[in-house]
Structures are given as C-alpha cells and as structure tokens.
C-alpha cells in the first residue's frame, strides 16, 4: 500500500492528490498533521508544488465545476481525521461525475466530503456572529477566537468588506493562525507583522454596556438555558464578551 504524505496546506493536499491519482491502486493520501501508518504501508512524502497546485485548481474547477473545488477546500478546512483521503476519493468520483458530484449525497466516496463541507460552512457562518473585536488602538481591532474547524480564511473576507476603514487582526488561538487586514488587503499566516499592543479594549465601557444589554434583553418568564446552549455551544463562550465574568 502506498500512502502519499503531504503537509497541512491545501496546496500540499492537491499536490499529493495529483500523485496519488497517477499511481496504480492501491493508494492513500494523508497529511503530516495526523496519520498512523500500518504494516505493509509505504510512505511517500510529497513536496508541495505550487505550480502543480495552480494547474490542479483550474483543472478541477473547469472540468468538475467550481462547486467541487469549493467542497474539497471547505472539507479540507474541517481538519477531521482522514479528511485528506476523503478529499482524494471525492476527486476520483468528480473526474467521472463532474458537476453532478455535489448532489450525490449517498455515494460513499462523496458523502463524507459533503458532510464535512456542511459542518465547516455552518461553523464559519456562526463565527461571523460570534467573533468579538476589541478596539486595542484608535484604528486597530483585535479578535481572538477558537473555532473547531480552520474557518479563518472563510470569515476574513466578510470582515474585510465590513470593517474596511479599520485595520484588524483575527487570531485563531488554537492553530495560531492570524488574518491580518491593513485597510487594503488581508493576509493569512502564522504571525503578525510588528508588535501587538496589549489586547485590552481602549474603551472597555462598551463591553460592560454590552453585558448589561445582554442580561436585560432576555425575558425571565421564557428562560430556556438548554436552547441557548444548543444554539451557542459552551465551547465558544471563552471568547464571547457577554459570557465572560468580570
């Protein structure tokens, strides 16, 4: 059994998918982030080839449709164990079924990617609401959060459009990934240029006002903490201003 081992980037994944596809079966794709080798398995490390990635990207979107490419990308962002190989198997189906692939909800090689894509899309939509900025300097906003999937590349464009006259940083604390916007363009990476001021709000009164508002807008007679918890799971509370006790 040959297993292609890629780095944790999407570029790396598509490079490995290319090589795995060229081989005669059986083959498998895993990423360096999480894999277990089994007996009789040959690991082939794949070096990320950006030019090849570019070709793969345009090949997939022109031949199988951009929906297939987006499904693969979003599913990849889930970071679920085994997702790299699922993306590879999805790709194999997509080569044959083309635009129809994203509708094959019951196909065993398609369903896992569609499912992962849905989870990621759902979480990234939730994060558009749950991200909390602090105004840490007159013109600089900072948000720390900890999403389950790697949704930073999906949420950043929304804020680049919305907060375009400010500079801001969105920090995925778990993965140590930063989206940095300077008022013109947004860069996603593992570091921030320059030194960050302390991450406290320069006008923290608004955080207190928000907490007060949050408490007062609830109707005591309708109290339903279970419902609240299912809509706003506890794992997100750490970074929600209204759920922080001061």
């Amino acid at each position, binding site marked *: 059994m040959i297993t292609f081992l890629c780095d944790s980037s999407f570029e790396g994944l598509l490079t490995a998918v290319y090589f795995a596809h060229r081989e005669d079966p059986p083959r498998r794709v895993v990423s360096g982030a999480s894999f277990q080798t089994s007996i009789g398995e040959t690991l082939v490390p794949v070096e990320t080839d950006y030019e090849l990635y570019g070709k793969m990207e345009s090949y997939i979107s022109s031949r199988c449709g951009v929906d297939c490419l987006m499904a693969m990308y979003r599913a990849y962002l889930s970071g679920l164990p085994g997702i790299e190989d699922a993306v590879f198997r999805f790709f194999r189906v997509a080569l044959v079924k083309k635009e129809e692939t994203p509708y094959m909800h019951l*196909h065993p090689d398609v369903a896992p990617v569609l499912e992962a894509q849905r989870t990621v899309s759902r979480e990234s939509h939730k994060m558009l609401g749950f991200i909390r900025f602090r105004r840490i300097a007159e013109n600089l906003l900072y948000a720390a959060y900890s999403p389950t999937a790697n949704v930073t590349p999906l949420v950043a464009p929304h804020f680049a459009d919305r907060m375009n006259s400010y500079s801001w940083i969105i920090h995925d604390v778990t993965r140590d990934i930063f989206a940095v916007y300077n008022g013109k363009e947004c860069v996603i990476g593992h570091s921030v240029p320059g030194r960050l001021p302390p991450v406290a709000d320069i006008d923290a009164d608004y*955080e207190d006002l928000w907490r007060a508002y949050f408490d007062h807008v609830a109707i005591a007679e309708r109290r339903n903490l279970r419902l*609240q918890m299912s809509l706003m799971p506890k794992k997100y509370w750490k970074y929600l201003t209204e759920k922080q006790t001061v």
Partner: protein
Amino acid sequence: MQKLSILADAAKYDVSCASSGVNRGGVRGSLGNSVQGGICHSFTSDGRCISLLKVLYTNYCTYDCAYCINRKSNDVPRASFTPEELCELTYNFYLRNFIEGLFLSSAVIKSPDYTTELMYRTVFLLRSKYKFNGYIHVKAIPGTDPALLERLGAIVDRMSVNIELPSEASLKLLAPDKKKDDIVAPMKLIKNKIIEYKDTARHLRGAPKFVPGGQSTQMIIGASGDTDLRILSLTEAMYRKYDLKRVYFSAYVPVNTHPLLPSVLTAPPMLREHRLYQADFLLRFYEFRADEILNEANPNFSRHIDPKCQWALLHLDQFPIEVNRAPYNKLLRIPGIGQISAKRIIQARRHGSLSLDDLAKLGAVVKRARFFVTCSGRYDPALKFDEQSIFTGLLQASDVPDAQLSFFNASSPVLALREAAI
C-alpha cells in the same frame, strides 16, 4: 448604563430581531455591510437570537395600552436616549461585532410625529455623520405623517408596523388609543412606496431604495380570545395584501393586572407561539393555505403534534406518497421532510432508488416521515396505515415532552385533536 438597561428592558417583548433580507456590500470609508440571510450574534438565556441592538428611543408614553409594560399609567423607571447617544452605542457595538445593526422602536412621546422625527434624526445622523452602513430596522408609529414616514423609509433597511392584536375588537378593548385604520395606513404606504421606488430604480440606476429589506409586523398571542384559525388567516391575508416579509408572533407575557387580560400568574403560551411559527412556515415556504391547516371545525392547533402532522392526519387520502417519484411540491407535504431534504431527495434519487435509511441520511426526520411514505412501492411493514395507529406513533415521536405522558388516554385522533386544542 442605567438608560440602556431601562430601554432594552422596555423593548424586549418585541420579537422581530432578524437582520435579513438585504445583501449590501461594504462601502469604502463606511462601516458595515449586510448579509441576505442575516447573522445571529448571540443567544439570550431564553434562547432567542440577538442580531440587532433592540431598544426603545424612549419609554415615556402618552398612550395606555392594557398589555404593555410602558403604558402611561404604569409606575416604571423611564428614560430617553439622545440621537448622539444612540449613534455612539450602535457604532461602537457594531465595531466590536456585537450586533448586525439597530432595531429602533419607541413609545409615543408627545405625538406620533414628534416621536418619529426623533427617530429620523437618530437614523439620519447614524447614516451621515457616522457613515454607518449596517442594518437598520425601525418601527413605524401609527398615526405618523406619511411624508415623514417616507423620508425615514428611504434611509432604513426594514420598517414594521405592529398590528398588535389579531382582531379589531380586541384592539378596541385593549389598545383604546390605537385604531385599525392608523395601523393599516402606514402598511399600505410602505407597500406602495416600495413598488414606486423599485419602478424608478428600473429607469434610473443608483436611485435610492425604499426599505430594501421589506416590511414585517408582529402580533401578541394569548392576550385576547382570538382562535389560531383567526390568527393564521390574518397572517395569510397580511402576506398577500401588504407583501410582508415576515409576521412575528409574541406569546403574551402578563405584565399588567387588567380584568380583560390573563392574570400575571399565567405562563406565556409558548407552545401556541411555536405552533403558529410552524404553521407560518407552511404558509411561506410549503405552499399551504391557512384554511387547509385549520377550519371552523378545527380552529386550533394540537398540543401534541405539529401543524403539518395535524394536516396530514386529516388528509390521509393523499398518502402514502412514493418518495422515489413524487414531485417536489408533493414531497414538501410529507411530515418530517423539509425544503432541504426534499431537494436532496430529488438530487439523490437520480442515482438510485431510496430506502427509509437513505431518507434519514438525506436529512429527513424519519420518525415522522415513515408513516406517510412508500419507498419503491413498499410501506414500512412494521407500521399500520390507519388514523389511530399513525396518531399513536406520532405522539411517541412528538416534539412536546408531555405529549408522551398523555397519549395513553387519547383515543380517537380527531377527538383528541379537539380536546388537545389550546
């Protein structure tokens, strides 16, 4: 802080919080954009979505509506914002991503015109000086000068007029200062202006839009003796006549002692509100008519089963439906199958015929759907297709916990439906 607490408290019974219906990209140098489907920013301890900063401009009121906490004869703390204060608050909340925008309503201070003028000044300031490009929903105060309302409508995303109570009779009893005509007039105005502005925009690119997010309304449930049929028919008429985007229902929370109102010890009719929302969904997205769901013989929803199941039980002659062949609009009629699962069913069956297990994988709620479908001509052999068996089965799958306790003594479904009526 005190002020915000008072004016948030005073606005909390208003339910329409959504920030939906407008897709507007950001503008260089302005703060904000708007997303078609709306965004929830938080959820209160009662499980409702917080999307907009929902406050009253003031809770000083010259009116005396019986059901309202802010009525002039109540002794409650009062406060008013200034336009600047509200702008600062909205802008700074938005900047921190606490909210999608502002939902501004108000008690009636001095006169409807005076009140609306203050609201207009606030919104104008927010749009011009603060360059705020986020979502704004305002409540239109009945009795306001149409010209003033038109100016307001041109700078907000959504406008709504509360119809408050489901019939003119209950309005007369409980809100003596409000007249049906005063409520209907601004609704008509909004509808007509939307059409008029759209028409202009067709010929003139970049012409201003009038409440691009459309209008909505809300009514209070359980403060008056109106039946569910009455409420649902009114809802349907509202969608048709005024082209409303949404009708909201608000389970009455007894805040005042009044001979004509439920006592302050009465729990808000949450289940009834829930059923109305379920039925409202059937009207808006499932092509149901109000008189199909309820009628004079059955004027109220069942406590035990949802409106779609209630309808299906009374129309068993239309079932079972073959999931591998039925068109989209027929699939939508099956309890346990929604818009998303119906679409997926149609997509997936192109690649092979579907079983009950497959339906579950496609997102259908099989514990309800199984009573009403055949898969490749086969009805679930574990089930019996008759009214009594299906009713009992549905109760076991009910979304209301106490329905399971009481189903043992519910015999005939139709009788049970009547008994169970709220």
